């Protein structure tokens, strides 16, 4: 414990800006992963335990595309599109076989793929740490806000996540396809009886969820190191986010992700060894006082 460090940071504007920015970065990446998770749970009623793997593949796809083409835009695009395709195949070939069955069977299929995907990455890209490196366009001096350091890349990252949140939120609320998706989440039998292909919707939602996780991985690739199994800690954290926010709630995922991001960033100052413990403690407190999370609707 180092409460002095935390206290001195809280009283320094420069440190506040730096820590808040890094908290926002963690939060925004987590949001992208968690919102996919919450979307898949909301519509398919499946807890996608293999979701972290899509984050991992997003990062590796982006790294490979960047090394081949040198284009950062193409890297992000291949991270997102590649994982969307992967999600679609995974859902149609495997997950669709266990809908409506024992929750344990669904978890088990996902668990199997956590093991398989990690080994596949190890086979293709090797077991060691890899790094994509910061694209040249962002290798510029950082901004200073009130003395705090804010790298320009962070601003892009926050911007992309916010745009994704807005598009997703508005799309689900307003667009026709969004309404169909929400209807399918509510009553798949009825939607299917109306002549809409629910299998297509399920596959599409899973692909969308995978794409969001892949986008997060691709965006994280320049600032994090890549390793097989990197999806796992992200998965656990995004679970915490969705549970705190309320499974199935997009707003909840956003708020939960920001809270966890800030807890991690400020917690690492005051409780360097217990930063993760703080997250779990926070999750326990939330679940005990509100069993369905802050924005969850259904009654547990």
């Amino acid at each position: 414990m180092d409460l002095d460090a935390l206290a001195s940071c809280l009283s320094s504007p420069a440190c506040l800006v730096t820590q808040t920015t890094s908290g926002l970065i963690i939060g925004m990446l987590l949001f992208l992963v968690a919102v996919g998770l919450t979307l898949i749970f909301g519509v398919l009623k499946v807890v996608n335990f293999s979701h972290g793997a899509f984050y991992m593949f997003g990062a590796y796809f982006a790294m490979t595309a960047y090394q081949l083409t040198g284009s950062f835009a193409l890297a992000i695009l291949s991270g997102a599109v590649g994982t969307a395709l992967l999600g679609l195949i995974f859902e149609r070939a495997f997950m669709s076989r266990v809908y409506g069955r024992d929750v344990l069977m669904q978890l088990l299929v996902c668990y199997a793929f956590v093991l398989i995907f990690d080994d596949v990455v190890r086979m293709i890209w090797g077991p060691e740490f890899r790094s994509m490196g910061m694209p040249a366009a962002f290798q510029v001096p950082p901004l200073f806000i009130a003395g705090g350091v804010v790298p320009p890349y962070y601003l892009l990252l926050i911007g992309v996540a916010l745009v994704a949140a807005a598009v997703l939120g508005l799309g689900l609320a307003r667009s026709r396809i969004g309404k169909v998706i929400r209807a399918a989440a509510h009553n798949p039998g009825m939607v299917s009886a109306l002549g809409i292909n629910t299998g297509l919707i399920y596959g599409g939602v899973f692909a969308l969820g995978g794409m969001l996780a892949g986008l997060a991985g691709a965006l994280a690739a320049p600032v994090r190191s890549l390793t097989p199994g990197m999806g796992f800690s992200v998965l656990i954290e995004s679970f915490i986010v969705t549970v705190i926010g309320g499974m199935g709630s997009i707003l909840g995922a956003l708020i939960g992700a920001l809270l966890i991001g800030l807890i991690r960033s400020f917690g690492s100052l005051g409780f360097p060894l217990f930063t993760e413990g703080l997250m779990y403690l926070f999750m326990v407190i939330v679940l005990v006082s509100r069993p369905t999370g802050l924005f969850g609707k259904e009654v547990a």
Partner: protein
Amino acid sequence: MTELQAGQGAQPLEVPRIDARPQRYRDVLIALAAFVLLALLPMAFGSKQLLDFVIRCAAYGLFATSLNLLVGYTGLISFGHGMFFGLGAYGFGLMMQKTGVPIPVAFVATLAMTFVVAVVIGAICVRLKEIYFAFVTLAFQMLIHSTILSWQSLTGGDQGLRGGIPRPPFLGIDLSNHLHLYITSCALLVIGLFLMRQIAQSPFGYTLRMIRDNATRASFIGIDVWRAKLTIFVLAALFAATGGIIMALFVSGAYPEFAYWTISGEGIFINMLGGVTTFLGPMVGTVLLLILNDTVTRLTEYHGIVLGIVILFFAIGLRKGLMDFVVEWFAQRRGEGRG
């Protein structure tokens, strides 16, 4: 899922036999026979690997079977049961390293500590249902794991409890002797399984099945569901801690991985592998997983892929655990023979 239908003819509403004495005599005989067989094993095959394998089976088997009391019998899918395995290992290891009390005292004290922790955590967890129960147990597990990692002065942090666990002889038993450790582990395994079997077959055990199948109905007929769930949560924790103690004795230490969530994940996997509707399913699963792990690790460095494909075979192909499959297959054959 309904064991009544599978085991005792097509009478799902049959009232369980309250007078379970004849069955208990049979269980005692089976337990004694199993213990004698295990105790004779070293004479038939003296290989140290085999004895080590059985000790590991005892540790994981107690853990997995106790988890099945929650998952299979009560319908409580715990993703944090491994925390009690870890608590058992750390509690026992620390007690032996720091206090120098005799082993039986440390054993009982570790179970007492686990009891207190399980009552507190269980009281919070069993209020929640299904996926929320799974998550809150997972969160507690990780909280304990984080505490072990960060409390370095006591637990050694990510290095684990090192320097070995002292094993002073007691009552003529010397646990630093490999054979003594083996026999003690077997005895703990057999006693633990026997006790869990008695819990599962008792009227309380049938109350648990009713809660699993229809909790609302159970509470309508006056069962205190919360209390019953908490009771089995705590009992299962004690058996899991016993598994952890065996593990700590076996490796002469305790490591943070013992309290990591993957232990719980493996426990669930073992249950699915062996089957959740027969009492011995988790034991079969334990043996299968340990053999699978040992052979696959020896054959290839990509053992995740092999393990994953085996899991897929059970989850999508077989759709149930091995013992479930075998029992149903026999039941079907018997049915065909008669009709």
